[in-house]
């Protein structure tokens, strides 16, 4: 059933600061954060107290609704602090890392010899279950359900994204073991999507026990949401799971070595990054460990964990996200531009629209900042203005308006089951009315969760 799919719609943002393909630093952070807020649908219950010792893979948090789902410590050491926000909301568990990393031993296992139940138990016990995301809604996968299929994208087209080949091809064995394990959990097996341009050279082309697809096109061709929509869209009452390569490798390594190892390469990139390159570290690393990449600049910098379209603004005291494999450094665009909108040329700005002239210089990369370039207005342009960057068979603005109206029936019709907020990120980028489409869809999904549960 392998398919070769060409997506014509999309947009590659020409942004400066791509990470060079080398690891410039190996970081062992003194403190690492585990942040429950990153896992949607996870109600955290603390399993540790300040001062407790933990090993790599020790459970730190459990889900109140589904006590089997654990989140584990990415490093060994001591629980230093439990950070709480308003109404004692649990924000983060800070773990002081020990010099010598010790791993909790879960025992080597051969996934081929295990049953689906045994695999589930092993993944849950090691705290690796949160890598599995359920669609619709983008929440933690429910261990009691059997999904239609599991999807994984083996390439990333997002702006300045980390190169999946560079990051993961040396862990091919672990990825393969992860696929072998997960393929027992679903009806339709594991679908892995490759970049069509590298289909034959890619290490992931040699993966077995999964259904390989290849996608050709601009961003968002490499996002798992677009891939599902073009392989087989999600209908009402269907569930699929998605997982990243990082997740597959972590689960695979659990079976191969019996350890939880979350160390990975993270791309530090963006227009403000000095020497954009990769670092090797663990999730939850404080950004302060990467201060050298910013240097002594007077300009305000925004630290985005993830890519510029869907990432999270974590601030200079923040921590790299659990799922993120890049840290993007942007300049805050809080300066005024005299008569900007009426200036005929404005060569330093990038626009997909022919109202500007950046289409004349397709080779150029731009020093993008966080300015909105205009005020918020009602939707003026048609649906098709937005769908030119969305290679998905839905009407994005109809969906957004249904979300705004809170009309569940219309939201279902227009495809709320197929999208997560991140899928509309490019529509949000090009929106001349400067609306926060991702936020609107996220609220729509919250409403669905509330009403349908």
């Amino acid at each position, binding site marked *: 059933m392998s398919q070769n799919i060409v997506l014509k719609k999309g947009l590659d943002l020409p942004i400066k600061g791509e990470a060079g393909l080398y690891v410039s630093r190996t970081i062992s952070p003194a403190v690492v954060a585990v942040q429950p807020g990153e896992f949607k649908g996870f109600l955290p219950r603390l399993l540790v107290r300040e001062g407790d010792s933990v090993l790599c893979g020790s459970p730190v948090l459990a889900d109140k609704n589904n006590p089997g789902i654990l989140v584990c410590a990415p490093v060994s050491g001591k629980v230093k602090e439990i950070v709480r926000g308003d109404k004692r909301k649990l924000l983060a568990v800070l773990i002081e890392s020990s010099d010598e990393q010790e791993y909790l031993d879960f025992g080597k296992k051969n996934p081929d010899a295990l049953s689906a139940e045994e695999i589930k138990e092993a993944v849950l016990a090691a705290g690796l279950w949160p890598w599995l995301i359920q669609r619709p809604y983008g929440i933690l996968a429910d261990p009691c359900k059997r999904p239609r299929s599991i999807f994984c994208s083996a390439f990333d087209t997002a702006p300045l994204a980390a190169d999946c080949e560079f990051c993961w091809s040396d862990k091919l064995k672990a990825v393969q073991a992860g696929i072998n394990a997960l393929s027992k959990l679903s009806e339709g097996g594991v679908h892995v999507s490759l970049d069509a341009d590298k289909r034959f050279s890619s290490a992931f082309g040699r993966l077995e026990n999964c259904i390989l697809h290849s996608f050709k096109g601009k961003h968002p061709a490499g996002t798992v949401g677009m891939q599902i929509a073009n*392989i087989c869209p999600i209908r009402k009452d269907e569930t699929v799971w998605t997982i990243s390569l990082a997740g597959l490798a972590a689960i695979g390594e659990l079976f191969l070595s019996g350890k939880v190892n979350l160390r990975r390469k993270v791309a530090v990139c963006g227009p403000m990054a000095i020497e954009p390159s990769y670092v090797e570290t663990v999730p939850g690393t404080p950004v302060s460990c990467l201060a050298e990449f910013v240097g002594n600049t007077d300009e305000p910098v925004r630290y985005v964990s993830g890519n510029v379209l869907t990432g999270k603004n974590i601030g200079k005291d923040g921590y790299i996200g659990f799922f993120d494999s890049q840290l993007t450094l942007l300049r805050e665009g809080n300066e005024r*531009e*005299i008569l900007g909108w009426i200036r005929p040329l404005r060569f330093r700005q990038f626009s997909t629209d022919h109202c500007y002239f950046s289409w004349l210089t397709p080779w150029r990369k731009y020093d993008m900042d*966080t300015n909105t370039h205009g005020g*918020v207005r009602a939707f*003026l342009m048609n649906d098709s203005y937005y769908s030119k960057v969305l290679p998905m*068979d839905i009407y994005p603005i109809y969906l957004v308006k249904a979300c705004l109206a809170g009309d569940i029936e219309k939201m279902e019709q227009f495809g709320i089951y197929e999208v997560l907020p991140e899928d509309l990120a490019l529509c949000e980028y090009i929106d001349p009315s400067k609306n926060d*489409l991702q936020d609107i869809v996220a609220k729509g999904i919250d409403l669905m969760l509330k009403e349908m549960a």
Partner: protein
Amino acid sequence: MNKIFEKGGKLHWLRSTADAFDTFLAVPATVTRKGSHVRDAVDLKRIIIIALIAVIPAAVFGMWNVGYQHSLAVNGPSATPDILANFWYGFLKVLPLYLVAYIVGLVIEFGTAQIRGEEVNEGFLMTGFLVPLIVPVDVPLWMLAVVVAFATIIGKEVFGGTGMNILNPALLTRAFLFFSYPTSMSGSSVWISLGKNEQLVDGFTGATPLALDGAAQYSTSIWSEFLGTIPGSVGETSTLCILLGAVLLIWTGVASWKIMVSSVAGALLVGGIGQIAGITDIPCWEQLLLGGFAFGTVFMATDPVTSAQTETGKWIYGFLIGALCIMVRLFNPGFAEGMMLAILLCNTFAPLIDHVVVTSHIRKKFRKFKTA
């Protein structure tokens, strides 16, 4: 922005106004808070200014033509197409229309923005630019003020402002004028600007070629219809200048070429049928040069707010506009021109067209993937 405009400040009631001028002068320093951290450089101000530039050739030519038609009416065929003098005459005639349209419209726009506590929308810049181009040049200014106020309030603001309206506000002014003050919108000389004591030369009818059903006015050749040296509303006569605007609109993607193409197709089809059936002597392609067809197709039908939203819907919507326009021209003796009515009617039907397109698409979509 200055503190006196903030909440609690002395001039808070002028906040939207101050904000409008402020953002007009400089792109604001606002940064993204949620979602995508970087945004495209394009905003609505830019899109609207491009649309406005596209109309400028038609507007400038229209002003010259006002002067030229006046001189034809007063001096007869000996009139010279003196470019500067004619333009200046027309400019002075059209300028008050612009002043009235913009002042009335913008006051309402700023007022409603202030009441809602929002930023002022740029939409009226476009509406206000179009209105003087589609009304008779001698329309009394108080009438223009009344109709602009009506169209802005009832046509747009009650629905929630720019982006929410169902009908094209510029066309609504014309429709209101047309039905409320028919005397100043019909008759043979309304499309010509005349001074108080000026006399028409003998034999000059002043009617538009459409009103005469193609009967030859002097110099109403195909060429002059294309260039636009014929009587009519200020902006609508020159197909050439409108085409220039169309090229810019299509190239920048501000307006949909699908609507334009299908509108032309619809007009050709009905015009052709009329010609074959012997209802009219005007060849179907000449219909495209006459009246407000070109202006309506390029600048009015393609308004992204009031046109169909879906791609298939745009084909249907444009086709209906073209077909209905020519149908009114051929079959309704009461109205010489049908473009305005065709567009307003199709504006009303656009949501229905979209509804049909969208629901049938959704039904088909999952059938395709049933086996996968």
